[in-house]
């Protein structure tokens, strides 16, 4: 083998003539016509196409896969909401998702960043937003909320991963502040209002019957709601937050797949249960049953799908506990002493704001760090 052939000075591009000598690499000699495939290039001292840093093996997870799995996990709640609220829910969901995708695309183009509509995050944001809206919410308002969620909730921070607050909740907060009347006009599920179960034919007839949410009833009129309807969704409320069971199915799927940190729902719901339970034990007349607190409103939806949003929750185990407990405390304070009947949204947004600090304060001790301190 001549030196030119192997020496780096000759470079990859200007390959010297093939030396038919006996030391020529065998594979190249075997290939009679030099094919332009990778193998022949490899053995002719040219550069390989893929030179990259380790590791060369990759796990199967990817960002779109996570996003689409979360969407999948929301399907039971979505299907149930279609069943409960019919076309109104469907229109709201479709409008929110579509508007979110359009807003994402438009932001990408204006900001000249990679088009990220297909990674699923915009779809998820739209879907989550729709699930927090009452079924009769105006179409224009839904679209506006989705646009605000994407543009002000996510893109102004720099797109996916850079946002501090959960985008869907930003959209929802904007709508709540903008249209406080519309967003608190609740429709009863079709068959509940009629008192006829599984009578789909009548659902359009009762569109627009307004009812109050269990939390609203409790707060302003001191009327409790039975727990069973809370579990199965036969109550007034937002599109996606009426049935605890449908949400739990998806939520548990996420926990099993480890796309949601189990500590967050556990600490969040657990804190709500313990805190409100303590109050209930002190005065059962004044304070609601802790089970009611857990099952009503958007707590299950928030705890499993919104608080666990990876971008806006802490990465350290200790930080995650603090985050969940903080949300639980804020929620109970808002629900019991605050001016609003529901506080899931604000409790999550509030703790979202603390996440960067929590990540800093709760940096785990690295392997061997404790011993080092002891020795000193």
């Amino acid at each position, binding site marked *: 083998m001549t030196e030119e052939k192997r020496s780096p000075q000759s470079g990859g591009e200007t390959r010297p003539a093939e030396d038919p000598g006996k030391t020529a690499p065998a594979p190249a000699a075997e290939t009679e016509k030099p094919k332009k495939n990778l193998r022949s290039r490899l053995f002719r001292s040219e550069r390989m196409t893929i030179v990259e840093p380790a590791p060369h093996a990759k796990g199967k997870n990817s960002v779109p896969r996570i996003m689409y799995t979360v969407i999948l996990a929301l399907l039971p709640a979505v299907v149930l909401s279609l069943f409960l609220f019919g076309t109104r829910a469907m229109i709201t969901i479709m409008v929110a998702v579509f508007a979110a995708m359009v807003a994402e695309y438009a932001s990408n183009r204006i900001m000249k960043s990679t088009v990220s509509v297909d990674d699923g995050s915009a779809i998820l944001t739209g879907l989550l937003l729709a699930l927090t809206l009452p079924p009769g919410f105006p179409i224009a308002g839904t679209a506006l909320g989705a646009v605000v969620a994407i543009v002000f909730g996510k893109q102004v921070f720099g797109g996916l991963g850079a946002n501090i607050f959960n985008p869907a909740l930003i959209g929802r907060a904007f709508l709540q502040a903008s249209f406080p009347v519309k967003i608190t006009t609740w429709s009863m599920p079709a068959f509940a209002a009629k008192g006829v179960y599984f009578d789909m034919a009548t659902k359009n007839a009762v569109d627009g019957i307004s009812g*109050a949410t269990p939390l609203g009833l409790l707060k*302003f009129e001191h009327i409790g709601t039975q727990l069973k309807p809370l579990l199965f969704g036969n109550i007034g409320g937002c599109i996606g937050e009426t049935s605890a069971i449908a949400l739990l199915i998806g939520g548990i799927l996420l926990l099993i797949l480890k796309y949601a940190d189990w500590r967050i729902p556990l600490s969040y719901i657990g804190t709500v249960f313990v805190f409100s339970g303590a109050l209930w034990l002190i005065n059962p007349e004044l304070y609601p049953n802790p089970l009611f607190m857990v099952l009503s409103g958007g707590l299950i939806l928030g705890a499993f799908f919104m608080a666990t949003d990876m971008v806006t929750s802490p990465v350290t185990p200790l930080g995650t506990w603090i985050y969940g407990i903080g949300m639980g405390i804020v929620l109970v304070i808002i629900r019991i002493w605050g*001016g609003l009947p529901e506080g899931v949204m604000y409790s999550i947004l509030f703790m979202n704001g603390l996440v960067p600090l929590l990540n800093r304060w709760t940096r785990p001790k690295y392997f061997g760090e404790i011993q080092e301190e002891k020795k000193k």
Partner: protein
Amino acid sequence: MSNTPKIIIVLTLITLISGAVLALLDSYTRPKIDNYRKIQENQAIAEVLPENDRINEVAKDGYVFYEAYRKHELVGVAFQVSGGGYQSELVLMLGLSPDFSRIIGLKILSQVETPGLGTKIEKDESNKEDPGWFINQFKDLRTLPSISYVKNASPSRDTEIQAISGATVSSKAIVDILNTHIKKAKAARGIE
């Protein structure tokens, strides 16, 4: 070199001139401002009290009671109350019958509630015929044993008002303010 004397002189002069200008201004604008305030107050008192020929101011226990007399007979008492609303302090002028059993009139002096929602306590733009329907409900409302509210229904008792749907907190706040202050004012005036 010290220029302290100069500093003192210049600052003194500026302050003196400024003070003089402001004194002149005050003497010129104060009557106008006081006048306006008085008009406002009188207007509010007049709105919540029945016809009268004399108003007497009595201060007691932190309240200023405006007692309305007609032919030397006490026909009503008005006083200002305030309390927390949904997101601001609500200031109300409340006019009551002499025995505090009936509200003669209620006027909102200041509020900064959620626009379009809590503000309906003062003016409901969605109700074209009667924008002041909420506050007007308090006219001739009985105060005993206490005022209460109902939601999404017409009041059935003479101590009930209908809350604004979607602004229950603001509605509730007014009812609560009235209940507490009527009780306190009663004690202040020694009415059983």
